[in-house]
């Protein structure tokens, strides 16, 4: 072991990061792999909470199973319901109905949200319940070692598609937009500033809001495609991303393999819990 400081020079006490107050500091450091995108998502989310001056006491985090479910649970200091695999949106539905005054946020991965929990995603979007879902898409089941997921690109090798993925990926953001959500966007961990703005928007808007965040997994996914450094992914996201408005002018062939980023939908359909609670008003006395 080398005890020498990484940066030479006189040691200066580090100022605690201004967003550290949002974290359960007693359990840091995180368990994320080197180069993982989850830290970037956590940072962007904490920044959005800071910008909006939301009191963490007014938030509930609901997560599933997988690496990205650990972003809020246990790291973010808030009420946390760490549920069974694929079910956080369904658990969150019960929380939101009982406590519409709380901001209910689901952060989980592509396997959890779009795979095993895909049905809950579609129906929560259809109900347009006021929940914010951040789907951290790392293109594979990273926690279990890099198996193919419903979001893995076509033709890519994973530990369970050793002869390349014969399936097409689910475009989750487009699916949620079609199902009726009030706000849908897609960004990547390369697009940190638009991502932060988008998270703010998602937290503010009433109704179901969904952000698909492409996030690098250099360890489990990268090992199979020779992208072993975080920067390999960030460069890929930078080079392959196309903004929504530009994508509209491109042909299907031109869009092949591209990542369409930006806001897909923003609208004001009526929100489920508001409608549900309005029923009760009919029976209220006085």
């Amino acid at each position, binding site marked *: 072991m080398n005890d020498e400081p990484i940066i030479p020079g006189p040691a200066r006490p580090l100022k605690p990061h201004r967003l550290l107050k949002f974290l359960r500091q007693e359990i840091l450091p995180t368990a994320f792999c080197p180069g993982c995108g989850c830290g970037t998502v956590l940072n962007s989310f904490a920044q959005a909470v800071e910008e909006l001056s939301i009191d963490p*006491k007014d938030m509930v985090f609901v997560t599933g199973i997988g690496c990205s479910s650990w972003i809020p649970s246990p790291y973010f200091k808030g009420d946390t319901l760490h549920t069974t695999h694929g079910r956080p949106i369904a658990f969150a539905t019960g929380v939101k109905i009982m406590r519409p005054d709380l901001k209910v946020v689901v952060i989980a991965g592509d396997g959890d949200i779009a795979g095993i929990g895909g049905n809950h995603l579609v*129906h929560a979007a259809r109900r347009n319940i006021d929940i914010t879902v951040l789907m951290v898409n790392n293109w594979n089941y990273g926690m279990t070692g890099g198996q193919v997921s419903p979001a893995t690109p076509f033709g890519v090798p994973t530990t369970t598609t050793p002869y390349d993925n014969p399936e097409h990926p689910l475009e989750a953001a487009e699916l949620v937009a079609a199902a009726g959500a009030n706000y849908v966007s897609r960004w990547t961990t390369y697009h940190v500033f638009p991502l932060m703005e988008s998270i703010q928007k998602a937290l503010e808007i009433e109704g179901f809001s969904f952000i698909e965040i492409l996030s690098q997994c250099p360890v489990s996914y990268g090992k199979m495609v020779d992208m072993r450094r975080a920067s390999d992914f960030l460069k890929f996201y930078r080079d392959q991303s196309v903004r929504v408005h530009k994508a509209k002018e491109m042909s299907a062939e031109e869009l092949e393999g591209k990542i369409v980023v930006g806001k897909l939908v923003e609208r004001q359909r009526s929100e489920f819990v508001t409608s549900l609670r309005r029923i009760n008003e009919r029976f209220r006395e006085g």
Partner: protein
Amino acid sequence: MMTQRQSRLSGFDNRTLFLLGDEAAAYGALYAGCDFFAGYPITPASEIAEVMSRELPRVDGYYVQMEDEIASLSAVIGAVWAGAKAMTATSGPGFSLMQENIGYAIMTETPCVIIDVQRSGPSTGQATKPAQGDVLQARWGTHGDHEIIALAPSSVQECFELTVESFNLAEKYRIPVILLMDGEIGHLRESITFPAYEDVAREERRLAEPEVESFGGEDVPPMSHFGEGRFIHVTGSTHKASGMRDVSTQAVHEDLVTRLCRKIVDACAEISSVEEDFVDGAKIGVLAYGATARPARGAVLEARRAGCAVDFLRLITIWPFPEEAVKRLADRVDTILVPEMNLGQIAREVERFTAAPVLPLSKIGGVPHTIDEILDAIRANGSGSGSTVGQRP
């Protein structure tokens, strides 16, 4: 001042109505204080959801129909942590889907009620026909070591009363409680007399004082709710008393899981409820539960009328298994006859507590036992020796 719930429900006070078992169970939930129901339609349990969807808004509660039974129990658990008293209702296929989240509710000590109106299985089976085939699934359906509470009503009146009791036990022991109804009782229509709203005992949730941990410290720790600034951490992973995950320390897991079991095992006598009807000189006893207890009681009374002394034991609590009551019966008689609408699930459990012959009188196929069928079995075995029924499949 009367609450909205009180003023709505007190309209039923002391009235006698002609209701389905399903409907009575739904009203039991409302009297118990249930303010959240999530479910998915399934025969023969759908009437529970229909009553809840109609009545909950009238008592300022919430009904939501989810996309499946997994989501239903998920929403129930989420609602409980947000402060609700919550319930779902289903039948076998849906109950199978709920098993993983039942384990989650056990592990996170989430009080909630799950009504399983049992129908003939496995799989889709005879969708509209009654059965008692889920009693061991209720006990062991979810993975890992655990205890559970399950009750079985035998009448429409009891559908009401045991639903109230289910909510109370759920709160008292912080555990999911399963009300094991069956299609026969759920779709039976008979008289029920409502209690006065004020007279219904309701176990209120015990909430933790500040700084008191919600996942340990005592066998049944007090709960905390979301939105109180306590930053509680609820997880199905192995956790410490604080709620924080610790999945690598052997002792943490052992302490947690043994406590979750102990809190029920140690309270078995307190939880257990049975109906004992013993007579002098009985050589044979009939043990039954749920819908089957009705023809069983009829057969016992017929047999006594004909001069044959027969003991009768009805299990109201199925889990934790009322072993003391079963031992008392076993000490009195030479033979225990167990009619049930499955292939001997509870008979097998009874065998664990007696050396005397246990004779299953199984009947499946969606047709309940008749009094005569059980009476014939009593006659054939009433002397306490030999057996003509109870061939194990």
